[in-house]
């Protein structure tokens, strides 16, 4: 009887060990992907700063300045860009950001532009209007994809298909904290407090044209930034989830090893008792 039980325990230990190997490997993969995502965030920063600064300067410099991207109109319909992951096993990463998006989507007439397989599936399952499903794989999104998405969103906004655009993503605060976040990207919120020391700057052909040209680039930059931020969050969340899964597996293996040793000892004791009993005869 003890033999069967010992064999069972051994099997369970072995299966726990292979689970542990998998979770450990996933943790390591996530950690290396996280480094890459962090690097992407860092590299995209200077570009974004230049575009932002220039747009702010143009807007601040000219009191006559106006752009269709700045006009607040009555909100009849809103568009939400929701960034999720392609896979699960990342703790609460997908759930948290979808909860935030769903709450917003339910509160007003709106459409959703999901990024990532999970986001698309989730939004479809809840019956929200999907504006486009052209971006199903978050991990493969390139810089040019974020620009084409920005173009799509800007054109839709100018054509009056929707009156405001939000982006819902996960902000990577640290290795341990990732918080879902939302910001409005259109219409643009006018910037204040720009120290304008280049008032003699020549804009060609003129400020308005340059501004309207660079706004889609700016939005593209925001979208790309949010994707990188979310990607970093996803990998960090997965790393943490896999880390605790590995720890749980270790704990279970330890527990099972103890049980196994007890069973083994029990079996030996029994055998000795049997031999001693046999010799006594």
């Amino acid at each position, binding site marked *: 009887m003890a033999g069967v039980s010992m064999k069972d325990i051994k099997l369970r230990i072995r299966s726990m060990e292979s689970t542990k190997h998998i979770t450990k490997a996933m943790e390591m993969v996530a950690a290396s992907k996280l480094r890459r995502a962090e690097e992407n965030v860092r*590299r*995209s920063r*200077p*570009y*974004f700063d*230049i*575009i932002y600064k*220039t747009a702010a*300067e*143009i807007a601040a410099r000219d009191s006559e300045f106006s752009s269709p991207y700045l006009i607040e109109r009555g909100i009849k319909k809103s568009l939400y860009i929701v960034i999720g992951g392609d896979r699960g096993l990342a703790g609460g990463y997908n759930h948290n950001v979808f909860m935030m998006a769903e709450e917003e989507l339910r509160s007003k007439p709106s459409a959703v532009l999901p990024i990532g397989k999970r986001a698309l599936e989730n939004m479809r399952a809840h019956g929200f209007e999907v504006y486009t499903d052209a971006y199903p794989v978050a991990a493969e999104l390139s*810089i*040019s994809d*974020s*620009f*084409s998405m920005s173009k799509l969103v800007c054109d839709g906004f100018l054509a009056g298909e929707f009156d405001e655009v939000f982006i819902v993503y996960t902000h990577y605060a640290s290795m341990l904290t990732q918080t879902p976040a939302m910001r409005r990207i259109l219409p643009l919120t006018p910037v204040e407090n720009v120290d304008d020391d*280049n008032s*003699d*700057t*020549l*804009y*060609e*052909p003129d400020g308005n*044209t*340059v501004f309207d*040209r*660079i706004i889609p*680039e700016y939005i*593209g*930059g925001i979208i*790309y930034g949010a994707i990188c931020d979310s990607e970093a969050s996803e990998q960090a969340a997965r790393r943490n989830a896999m880390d605790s899964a590995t720890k749980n597996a270790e704990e279970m293996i330890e527990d099972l090893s103890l049980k196994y040793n007890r069973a083994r000892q029990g079996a030996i004791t029994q055998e000795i008792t049997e031999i001693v009993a046999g010799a006594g005869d």
Partner: protein
Amino acid sequence: MIGMNTFHLVIVTLDGVSFDGECEKLVVRTIDGDVCIMANHISYVTALGMGEAQVFTGSGVRKAACIGGLLSVSDNEVRLAPTTFEWAEDIDRERALKAKERAEALLAQKKSVQEEKIAIAKLHRALVRSSVAKK
């Protein structure tokens, strides 16, 4: 003599910094056509079109495919922030030509106005890349 006839040029894209150094002359295609920036240019901002960029440094000229974004000049500091920027030597000409063929095929089908626009933009991009790579 650095500073007299050179200026500091920084080229950044979302992919990172492509160039950071002293430069004698910069030629880029803006939405209104080619412009040439030399040292001590007045403060200047414009949006970029699609075309070839030429960076003249002391050691010669480097060419690149430069598409979209903006050019900003102030205090002898020139910042080029294009949507995409590829040095001629980094462009895979075969790939660019294939992309051109694909874009042409797409344009021949032209299903909707939106798709036609995208196809034209793709074709334009492929043409710029392949022509820059050729030289």
